Structures are given as structure tokens and as C-alpha cells.
């Protein structure tokens, strides 16, 4: 059995890594194809972290044209389609395994589907707020196995006309590390020393990505967001750079123009360090899926801003600010630091997984017979 894993961003790598660890331990044959931001210097080149984790990236596909506009983003996807087709025809995998909702993931799914290569899609069926949400559903149309991370998502897949035998609600594999406490032994003092930040002072994590279909509005929205973050006194702010979607250059420009000395920016933190920063932070704010999916494990508040994660299934620690304005952000912030609210989070559980997702997923893939019933999809509606 030959498995091919495709990933184009660090968040997807978080989903795939626990599964790959199981493959490695059990000598299951696999290869990794990495693309887009994951292999770019300007986005922190996470491939080095992957190699440090003991994995080999067998194929790197450079696809991202500079400019970060809707035009370059679309054209970049075209580059991936032609290149990844070659990868598939060379590797001839039994399964393509991919995760999430990004454009490059959709392209990988399209290529495999047209080449009759079965696709297993992790984090399937959810709603997300921008064009990624459309991409996720589109990937679902091409995928042969859907791994949903919660009941809400698996129900949606059924409603979208997917056959029931393809759908499994196994939780989010990226939580396995968090739940199994694998990374919990990092001392905050080690982080302080490694990154030269005073972590005795309270800090928050901010992750803000552009929203592709909002075009120029990104500038306005991020400007308001940044102004609000700057107005928060008494906290250090740890920023993770935004991804390379259309509009990201505007965000970077505004960030640099308005950055103050309590803003610490990181290109790409190793996952274990990122999780450790999150564990000790007072909250996570922005529009990253990490806030929605991961932060409730650490029982910290998450202020989710704008429509990027719109309608996604939320744990109880998420406070939404749909329309970005100083007063609404301020209200959410004050709620999130109130003792009453923080106390209410002490008993919450993360609905996205029980820490055993990866094993269930890989077992299901290995047990699934590759036959006509699997390959030729019938759409129920």
C-alpha cells in the first residue's frame, strides 16, 4: 500500500503529522508532497521543521507567484494542477491523503480524482467563512472517504449528497498531540530564553489572515483590527504572520506601519512552541481556525474576528465579533478578561476530538477496499 500525503500550509501539516507518526511507527509506506507556503522562505519554510521531526519531503512543488492578488493566486493554482499531475503519475499512490479547505488542496483533489486515485479528506464537511469554505465542499465532491471532526460536519456531508459509507466522524487529528499531552512538558522559561520575550508579562496571541473575497476591504478591516490591538495596554502581543492569500500584502504593510514595541512577530513557529505559547496565553484573537479548533483544549478565550471562520462549529470559548469595529472588539475583549467568563471556561471540553483520531483514520484507510464501489462515486442528490 502506497500512501501519498499532500500539504501546502502549516495548519494542514498539523492535521497530517500525527497520522504520519503512526505510519512511521508501523512501517506503513508513505511519501510526502509539499507545496505553496509550506516550502517558502518568506513564510518561514516549515519544511525544515518537518525534516527535524524526522520526515522526508519527497516532492516539493513551488507554485506561488508573487503579488498575492486574486489573479496571481488563481494562476498559482494552475501551476500546481499541472505539476501535481506529474507527481501522481510518477508516484502512482494507492491513496492521496489531504486535509482542510485550501485552494491548493482542492487542486490536488481534482488531479487525483481525474486520475482515479482514491482520496481521503480530513476535516471534511465543515463550514468556513470565505472561499476556503467553498473549496472544502468542492474537495468533498471529489473525495472518496470523508473524515469529519464533529457530528455537525458529518451531518452536513450527508445533506450535501455524499454516500453514508464514505463518512466517518473521527475527530480532528491535530488535537491528538494536545490531548495526549505530548507537548505539555515545555517550560515557559525555555520559550522565554529561546525567543527572548518577557513572558512574565501577560500576552495574547494574534493570528489574522486576509479574507480572499473581501478584496480591498481587507485593508480597512485589518486597519481597524490593528488599531484595536495597539490600544490594548499591559499585554505583549505575539503575532503569527498571515498566509499568502490574496490581500496578504496589504495586511503586512499595515502591520509594519503600525507595529509597536510590544508586538512580536513570528514567521513560523514550530508547532510545539506555538502550542506552548497558546497554553500560557491569556487569549487568542484573530480569524485563524486554530482559535476555533485548538484553543478550547487549553480553556483560554478565543475572540474570532470577521467572517473568515463564519458558521464553523464553535466550542464555548469562542466570542464572535462579526463586524470589525473598535467598540465591538472592545466589548468582546472586556468579556474575555472578566473573571466570570474565565471561570466559566474551566469546565469546557473540546468538541473536536478525543485524542485518538489519527489511529482511527489510518486504520479506516488501510481497511478500505479499493474497488469500483469506492472509486465511482454516486452523488445522492
Amino acid at each position, binding site marked *: 500500500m502506497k500512501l501519498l500525503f499532500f500539504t501546502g500550509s502549516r495548519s494542514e501539516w498539523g492535521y497530517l503529522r500525527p497520522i504520519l507518526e503512526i505510519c512511521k511507527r508501523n512501517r506503513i509506506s508513505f511519501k510526502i508532497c509539499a507545496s505553496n507556503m509550506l516550502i*517558502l*522562505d*518568506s513564510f518561514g519554510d516549515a519544511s525544515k521543521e518537518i525534516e527535524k521531526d524526522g520526515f522526508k519531503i519527497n516532492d516539493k512543488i513551488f507554485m506561488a507567484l508573487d503579488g498575492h492578488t486574486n489573479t496571481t493566486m488563481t494562476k498559482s493554482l494552475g501551476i500546481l494542477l499541472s505539476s501535481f499531475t506529474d507527481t501522481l503519475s510518477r508516484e502512482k499512490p494507492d491513496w492521496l491523503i489531504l486535509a482542510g479547505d485550501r485552494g491548493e488542496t482542492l487542486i490536488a483533489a481534482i488531479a487525483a480524482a481525474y486520475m482515479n486515485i482514491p482520496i481521503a479528506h480530513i476535516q471534511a464537511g465543515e463550514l468556513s467563512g470565505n472561499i476556503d469554505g467553498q473549496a472544502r465542499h468542492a474537495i468533498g465532491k471529489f473525495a472518496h472517504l470523508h473524515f469529519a471532526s464533529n457530528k455537525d460536519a458529518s451531518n452536513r456531508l450527508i445533506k450535501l449528497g455524499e454516500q453514508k459509507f464514505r463518512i466517518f466522524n473521527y475527530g480532528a487529528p491535530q488535537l491528538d498531540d494536545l490531548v495526549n499531552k505530548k507537548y505539555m512538558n515545555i517550560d515557559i522559561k525555555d520559550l522565554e*530564553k529561546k*525567543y*527572548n520575550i518577557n513572558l512574565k508579562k501577560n500576552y495574547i496571541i494574534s493570528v489574522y489572515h486576509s479574507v480572499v473575497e473581501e478584496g480591498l476591504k481587507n485593508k480597512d478591516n485589518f486597519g481597524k483590527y490593528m488599531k484595536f490591538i495597539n490600544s490594548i495596554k499591559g499585554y505583549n502581543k505575539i503575532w503569527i*504572520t498571515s498566509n499568502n492569500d490574496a490581500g496578504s500584502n496589504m495586511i503586512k504593510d499595515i502591520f*509594519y*506601519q503600525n*507595529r*509597536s*514595541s510590544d*508586538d*512580536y*512577530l*513570528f*514567521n513560523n513557529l514550530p508547532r510545539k512552541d506555538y502550542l506552548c505559547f497558546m497554553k500560557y496565553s491569556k487569549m487568542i484573537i484573530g480569524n485563524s481556525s486554530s482559535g476555533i479548533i485548538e484553543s478550547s483544549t487549553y480553556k483560554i478565550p478565543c475572540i474570532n474576528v470577521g467572517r473568515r471562520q463564519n458558521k464553523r462549529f464553535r466550542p464555548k470559548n469562542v466570542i464572535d465579533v462579526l463586524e470589525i469595529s473598535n467598540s465591538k472588539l472592545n466589548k468582546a475583549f472586556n468579556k474575555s478578561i472578566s473573571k466570570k467568563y474565565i471561570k466559566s471556561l474551566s469546565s469546557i471540553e473540546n468538541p473536536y476530538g478525543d485524542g485518538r483520531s489519527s489511529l482511527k483514520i489510518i486504520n479506516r484507510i488501510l481497511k478500505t477496499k479499493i474497488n469500483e464501489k469506492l472509486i465511482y462515486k454516486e452523488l445522492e442528490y
Partner: protein
Amino acid sequence: MVNKNFIVNKEDSILKVIEKIELSGHRTVFVVEKNKIIGCVSEGDIMRALINEKKVESSNQNIMNKSFIFLEKENLKEAKNLFINTLSSVIPIVNKKMEILDILTLESFLSKHV
């Protein structure tokens, strides 16, 4: 007044950065835009860029580090810790708005405090 030899623009070529590093007498220069510091490029970054077959004519913005150390004022204890922890020989001093005010070099630090 900040020594210009420590300052580059993000559009400057890697070659230009190498020249500046040579002139600065240190191993790191800072990328400044509208008087705000936005990153740094060290000899190590340049070595890695060359190993990865980057052209020396290309701009430095894809190799610059967006995470960098800085101080808001010349604080003996913090500066000492940063010099020891990072093995860097230069630390930019910035104001609240991240505008670059000065560059603290290891030799000036030692001559003042040791």
C-alpha cells in the same frame, strides 16, 4: 543618528546587503521601511540563501528575518542577557512605534559597562 551602514531597504539586493554587512563590521544589518524596523538579515541568512541557490541580485525581502531582537532603551541587564542568549553583536534600540533610534553594538556596550 543611526549608522547608515546597518540599514538596508527591503528592495535592496542580497549583494547590496553583503556590502553593507562588510561596511558595518558586524554580522547583521536591519531592514527599515519608513524609519520603522521590519526585519534583519544576517550572514547566516545569506549563507543559507546561497546554499539554496538564490541569486545575489534578488531582493533581500524573502530572506529577511521578521522576528528579531530589540530593546526599547539601553538597559544593562536586558542587553547583557540578549547578547549572551543570542550571540548577536548588535541590538537595535527602538521607540514605542518601532522606529529605529540607535544600534547598540557589543563593543560599545563592553566599553561602557565592563
